[in-house]
């Protein structure tokens, strides 16, 4: 039984080895030439005053969260769509409920004005 999985193991090992090679071989071969100016963050040709790490406005975080919610929702639809034929009407109803819940969330967010930027 175990031997059925043997090819899979070889494949995983090969992937792991290739990953190591791709990760460590090129930097070892290629030379490095760092200079003070090259390591500075690029700011359209100006020497930056401070590092690139800064506090971001909360609106960015809000937008990112909303995107993730609806993106994950989309991911759930893929496996559902693959076996929709077998699920037939039960599947459609189930997805309708799933979508309705998120639709309510979307309307709430829209009405609250979280989609407009910067207010």
């Amino acid at each position, binding site marked *: 039984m175990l031997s059925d999985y043997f090819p899979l193991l070889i494949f995983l090992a090969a992937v792991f080895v290739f990953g190591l090679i791709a990760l460590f071989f090129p930097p070892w071969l290629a030379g490095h030439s760092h200079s003070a100016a090259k390591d500075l963050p690029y*700011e*359209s*040709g100006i020497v930056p005053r401070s590092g690139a790490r800064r506090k971001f*406005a*909360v609106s960015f975080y809000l937008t990112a969260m909303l995107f993730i919610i609806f993106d994950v929702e989309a991911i759930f639809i893929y496996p559902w769509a693959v076996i929709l034929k077998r699920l037939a009407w039960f599947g459609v109803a189930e997805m309708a409920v799933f979508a309705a819940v998120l639709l309510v969330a979307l309307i709430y967010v829209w009405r609250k004005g979280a989609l407009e*930027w*910067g207010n």
Partner: protein
Amino acid sequence: MAETRIKQEPFGPGPAQEPLGPEHEPPTEWMELNMGPQHPSTHGVLRVRLKLDGEVVRDADADIGYLHTGFEKSFEDKTYTQGITFSDRMDYLAPPINNVGFVMSVEKLMEIDVPPRAQAIRVMMMELARIASHELWLGTAGLDLGVYSGFFYAWRDRELVLDLNELYSGVRMMTSFTRVGGVAWDLPDGWLEQLQRFINVMPARIDDFESMLTQNPIWRQRLEGVGALSRQDAIETGVTGPMLRGSGVDYDVRKAFPYCGYEQYDFNVPLGSNGDCYDRYRVRVQEMRESLKILQQALDTLPSGPWLTNNRKVALPPRSELSKSMESVIHHFRLVSEGFKGPVGDVYAFVESPRGELGFYLVSDGTNKPYRMKVRPPSFCNLQPLKKLVQGVLLADVIAIMGSMDFILGDVDR
């Protein structure tokens, strides 16, 4: 070898931080972003210090001078005829218009009148330059907003104008075709036919562009209502050209103070209504059509006759005359060696460049070189309201607004 004094400016707002502007230091969470000299959509080496509150722009301080070439200092060192070659390099999108402006200021100082054929040739070259400049603006401003194919359409049409420039003056861009008192050479044969072919083909191509952009929902959404400049603000901040006309102010130098025979041609001046980026786009596209109308009329009514004034004080005598009369050899020698001397006084001559009113304020102290030549660049004045236009605007719209201003850094920095 004089050591080039490159003063290493303590670059970037380091400890020797110069005052950012009169208002108070901004609250800490504002992020200062450098839309710096090397940026794909600043249309040249303009640096804008943006203060961002998240995505919303709170303050913009335009830092220009990265292409300052000291034209006005160089003009003081060159005779009037030598200065013509310099004038090309200032607004390098429409060099013929600079040439005509420069030479008109000298002609106004010396009170020389230009023969009608030379005036018609000047008008044709200027309108071609206007079309080429607007085409380039359409290509690059479209590029900023994602219209990648527009760049190739615009450049295909612009190459036609460059061919005409090359056929006439031998150079694609920097024509330097004017001389004080007229133009340097007569039109080569075949030029008028090529111009006629150009005029026949262009309207379809402009309609091509309009059909692609004008009703395009993305284009309209990105441009309508963005960077609106009211009529009063436009006059107050001294903007000129399509920016002024986009705000509804009916002022075009070709109509208000006709020069080079513009009063003979009938064309109308397109006006916008609410002065936003979309109106400026419509005004520029319509101006291209008007320029084609002028070109057609100038082509039909092209007078024959001399293309350079026969006033020997300023214009070189024709070569044929040199072998016959000693006097023209003297004139020729004096003009070539030291140029001509102008009266003492100061004059201001101005022309309509694709960006607006391009003025030359010439102060002469009686020598053969301009004592002081101040250029009134339209892009310099169009760029000034940037701080006012981008208050409270999203960062992406700053690109659209700067694109619609159509400034050229060679013109701004001189």
